[in-house]
């Protein structure tokens, strides 16, 4: 274990069981907390931000004990923090580690930005096609309007 790793360990300690969301852009840390509803659960949570990162320069990290995320929640993370890595830990051991991926289609979780879209007026689950994953752009399957990253609101 190198010196750098030791320092990191001191900053945010390990968890026994749960999920670590690593490599979050620092400006998105609190948004990730919000969209996952982490401010509203009783699990132990450790949050670090503006930590040094080789890949990102600065990064944020969130460790949530005894919590495993569903694919819809992981899609939400991908939309606001596309650089994030998801690490699942069981009994202090990493059992899964992968970068989150923006899916080709986004169902149910995002609200259409168009106030005149039928999905904002009738009980209809939203559906989007991801037009651009780099410069995140979603197209509503119903009204065909596009929603850019800065306008994404979650349902």
């Amino acid at each position, binding site marked *: 274990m190198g010196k750098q790793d030791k320092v990191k360990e001191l900053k945010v300690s390990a968890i026994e069981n749960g999920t670590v969301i690593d490599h979050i852009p620092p400006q998105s840390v609190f948004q990730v907390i919000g969209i996952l509803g982490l401010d509203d659960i009783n699990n132990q949570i450790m949050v670090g931000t503006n930590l040094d990162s080789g890949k990102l320069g600065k990064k944020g990290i969130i460790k949530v004990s005894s919590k495993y995320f569903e694919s819809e929640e992981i899609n939400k993370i991908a939309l606001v923090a596309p650089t994030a890595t998801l690490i699942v830990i069981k009994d202090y051991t990493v059992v899964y580690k992968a970068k989150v991926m923006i899916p080709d289609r986004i169902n149910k979780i995002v609200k259409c930005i168009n106030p005149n879209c*039928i999905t904002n007026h*009738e009980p209809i689950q939203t559906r989007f096609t991801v037009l651009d994953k780099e410069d995140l752009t979603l197209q509503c399957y119903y009204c065909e*309007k596009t929603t850019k990253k800065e306008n994404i609101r979650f349902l």
Partner: protein
Amino acid sequence: MRNNSLVSIHDITKADYETILNLAEKFETNPKRKILEDFVVATLFFEPSTRTRLSFESAASRLGAKVIGFSDTTSTSVKKGESLKDTILMVSNYSDIIVMRHPKEGSARFASEVSPVPIINAGDGSNQHPTQCLLDLYSIRKTQKKLDNLHIAFIGDLKYGRTVHSLVIALTNYQTTFHLVSPIELKLPSSVKRYIKEKNLEYHQYTELEDVIPNVDILYMTRIQQERFADPLEYERVKNSYVLRNSMLENAKKNLRVLHPLPRVNEITEDVDDNPKAYYFDQARNGVFVRQALLATILGAKLGK
């Protein structure tokens, strides 16, 4: 065509356009063909649009179909708060196909998902109006005898005009050169320009109408609406710069035709109406033939001999 419904111009391919336009030509030669006598066509107009509704009802009647429906929602269960899904499911019990206009974008797509019978979108808010697009294509092909290698100018509100968006997208299937004339605030949005760029087609942008007239085959005029402007003074400045007068057509090419989705207000002066280059009323007439072709195609009716 996906699910046999026609919701968006994106649902149909270039081959579909040509099938429909060719069939529309046959209806133009002989509009009265009673090939849908056993069918019921429902026209559900959740917002009024006399022109489009009458065009569809005329098309259905000339094919011998029965027409049921409503032209506004004041006397319907929609007024009582019935959901769109319920209205569509009920009406699909009474009809073989539903033609609908609705003020909310995406309503027709949703209807096509819940309806057991085909849906034809006759306008969903500012989103799509595919039958207008097809009748525009028909009018261009009829007047120019082709769809490839044409110079087509779009004038006025290119930002919000849904007919412009659909027609531009449809024309990217052909070797079109686009001439886009609008005030800066009403330029064609990048979401539509994307289609032109993807096909590497040529396009030019202008702010002056006079600049394009001598070089184009089609002038597609649109109305500039006051409510699009935050500043009323800006509207006053702009509204008269995109008005077509008969004298402006002097140097136009012989084959030029003026199209307009109608209704017009003041963007084409009445002295243009008598110019043989004015084609907007014929364009509206073509709408009936195109809608006959669509109803017949979707309902699987054959022309016979």
